């Protein structure tokens, strides 16, 4: 099930909240566990067994790690951590990368791996990363092992962040699983953030997404230079508002249930460098890779070549995490290259230059990166990039570009504005009275507008089926 459907908003959520608040405190995790399993089963059916398997295996491994550590058996603890990582990576690799590897090998003539046509379980990249963090956190002493298997199951399956993140580390959530406070204030702030997320997804992302889809579907000869850029701009906004919208919905739903998740996006499009962009974009993924891959590899406390190698590994992994396809790997390495350039000489001049230079530079490379991200087929990508840079032999603009620009200009302007903290800072400056008035209007209006788009939603894609 996905959040942006009528059945989730008006049936699943209503029933879950009702049961959650009607049962005694002790029973709430059971309500969450059962509803989360139902949530996953609804979309993935048989694959819900992965949830049971994951819960059982990681639960056992966590206890094992703790017991070994208590007995001073560090080697045993390490073995247990390794075994848990192997299990999680095996799960991820089989479902996500088997067909990709097999297909790539077959295209160079090696046929020992058959292409199985495995269907990718939704959200597998998110929850395998979360469960991996668990045993590692227990080993590092950052969290205590969870003794109650129902509570652990709740952590693994928690529906607000199950299928599209954010990736929550066990050390950040473990205590809340055991004990959390639900208050009206927290619930109401959850309503606000959920509303923001729904509006981002339904009113902006889906809207500009249609624009990108029409450009993506065009043959290169039908494109125009300005049109190709407009299309990429549309995807730039689609991916941000869709992804951060899902994260906001997760944070909001979490708060309504008494949880506090860390924010996942921090206005990435106001960055003045790529380095800054990656501190603001999909924060839960970059911190995961930093803590569980980059630092264990040695981080930057080593010789320069080794440090560069560590970064290369991290960015290759980041790329391929987004989907089992070569373009995602290229996308990751593209950022590796940019970050290297910045670290070695660009960052200093950028800081001295006027802010506008940094903004333009960052958005230019970010937009190009989204073209690489969005177009999986290399020959199509090459043709599209050529058109963007005026090498496609197509006109600068045509009538249909004019039509798209006029139709989408208001929504694109709104998206640009909403990518900055301007709205939030204006809101903060209002008095209590003003805030309450604005908030009431926005929530009521948002509920009506979002319901209208939920009900008559001819276009409502789920972008993370690759992840």
């Amino acid at each position, binding site marked *: 099930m996905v959040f942006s459907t009528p059945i989730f908003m*008006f049936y699943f959520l209503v029933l879950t909240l009702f049961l959650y608040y009607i049962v005694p405190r002790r029973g709430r995790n059971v309500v969450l566990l059962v509803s989360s399993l139902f949530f996953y089963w609804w979309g993935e059916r048989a694959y819900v067994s992965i949830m049971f398997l994951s819960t059982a295996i990681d639960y056992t491994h966590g206890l094992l790690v703790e017991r070994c550590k208590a007995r001073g058996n560090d080697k045993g603890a390490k073995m247990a951590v390794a075994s848990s990582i192997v299990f999680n990576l095996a799960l991820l690799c089989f479902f996500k990368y088997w067909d990709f590897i097999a297909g790539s090998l077959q295209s160079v003539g090696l046929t020992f791996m058959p292409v199985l046509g495995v269907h990718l379980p939704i959200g597998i990249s998110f929850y395998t990363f979360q469960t991996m963090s668990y045993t590692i956190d227990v080993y590092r002493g950052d969290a205590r092992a969870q003794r109650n298997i129902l509570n652990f199951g709740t952590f693994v399956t928690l529906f607000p962040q199950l299928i599209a993140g954010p990736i929550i580390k066990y050390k950040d959530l473990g205590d809340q699983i055991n004990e959390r406070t639900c208050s009206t204030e927290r619930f109401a702030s959850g309503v606000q953030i959920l509303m923001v997320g729904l509006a981002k997804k339904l009113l902006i992302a889906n809207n500009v997404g249609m624009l990108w889809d029409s450009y993506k579907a065009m043959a290169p000869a039908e494109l125009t230079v300005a049109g190709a850029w407009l299309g990429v701009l549309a995807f730039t906004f689609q991916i941000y508002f869709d992804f951060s919208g899902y994260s906001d919905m997760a944070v909001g739903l979490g708060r309504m249930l008494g949880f506090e998740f860390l924010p996942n996006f921090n206005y990435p499009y106001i960055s003045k460098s790529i380095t800054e962009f990656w501190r603001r974009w999909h924060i839960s993924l970059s911190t995961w890779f930093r803590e569980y891959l980059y630092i264990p590899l040695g981080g930057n406390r080593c010789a320069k070549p080794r440090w560069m190698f560590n970064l290369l590994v991290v960015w290759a992994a980041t790329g391929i995490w987004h989907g089992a396809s070569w373009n995602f790997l290229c996308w990751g390495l593209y950022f590796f290259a940019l970050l290297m350039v910045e670290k070695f000489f660009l960052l200093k001049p950028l800081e001295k230059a006027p802010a506008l230079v940094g903004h333009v530079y960052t958005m230019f490379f970010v937009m190009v990166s989204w073209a690489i991200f969005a177009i999986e087929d290399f020959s199509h990508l090459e043709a599209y990039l050529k058109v963007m840079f005026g090498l496609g032999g197509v006109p600068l603009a045509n009538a249909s570009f004019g039509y798209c620009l006029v139709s989408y200009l208001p929504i694109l302007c709104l998206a640009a504005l909403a990518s900055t903290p301007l709205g939030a800072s204006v809101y903060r400056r209002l008095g209590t009275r003003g805030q309450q008035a604005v908030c009431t209007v926005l929530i009521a209006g948002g509920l009506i507008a979002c319901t209208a788009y939920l009900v008559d939603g001819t276009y409502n894609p789920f972008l993370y089926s690759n992840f």
Partner: protein
Amino acid sequence: MTKKFSIFLTVLFCAFIGGVCVISLLLPDKDFSPLENRYLQKPPKLSLETLGSGKFMEDAEDYVSDHIAGRDFWVAAKAWSERLSGKKENNGVYFGAQDTLINRVDTPAWEDTPAQQGVPAKQGLSTRLGYLDTLVGNMSVPVYFGLIPSAAEIWRDRLPAGAPTADEKAIIDQLYFSTGASTIDLYGALAPHSGEDIYYRTDHHWTSLGAYYGANAVLEALGLEPLDLNSYQKTTVTDQFNGTLFSTSGVRWLPPDTIDAYVPNEGIKVTSWFKGSPEEGSLYVDSYLDVKDKYSYFLGGNQALCVIETERADAPKVLVVRDSYSDSLAPFLTERFSEIHLFDLRYNLSSIKGYVENNSIDLVIVLYSFANFTTDTNLFLLGR
């Protein structure tokens, strides 16, 4: 946030989602949405099989969405919101000038496109034309082929500036050039009258006036005497017609259309096969003027076969392979034929060849609107 305000927000939100949920559950089930002009999703069937295949979930999601409290309001609200945000179209319908809604027409491919990633295979124009030419080869009587351009082509000047739409004229010309059938120049007949009300503003069909120009194009191609509009008395049968484009677009801010009739229903016998057996029909069915689907006033709407007999015993017998555009055309054809057989491939799977021989038909017209000819999946039956 103050305690009081947070209670207010919590109540507002819960009352809204809970209210929609409860009211939707209490509302009686509807099978059909007259406003949207379509059948709504039936309650999902619960069985091990539908659960295992995921069909239950898909149907349940559609069911919830189709039977949500205030659905008609939400559909209209979305169209309004699109309009306010500067969009010039909603659900594939352009908001044209002069209060006109116009269906978006995509450029069809010449070659077949295979099925991929859940999108079913599509027949290209060459394949479609191939079926027509098989029919031409099968027949011992002459076969005429007519493609009716859509409002998007004839009323290009009413489209939003730069709105993408297929170059129907060029495609029709190329199809006419390639086919072995004799052709009917409907574009040439309609285009000079683009300033007149030849299509409905809220429906994708041509009006009776448009059908009149179409009828003369047919008669000209056949070498028969043309009709004269001045010899008819125009009767406006309703001025409350909200058509198919009203339904799909969600646009609720336009005035309704009028439906006119020209040819009097005199000395004409109509036999309709709505459900497999013949029943007495009529050129005009007044009861449809009281419901949403008012275009079905003409002949009573889609049917597998319709036979219209006139008093002109010496005139030729024609078989028209039809879509719904032919329904408002048929009254004009009664002036020049003894029998008109309207044959719909979507509901009638029998052989055209056999039918033509058994009923001693003198000529066959394959008459489609551009949009139907380029998308209908039953054209292969032409070749049988």
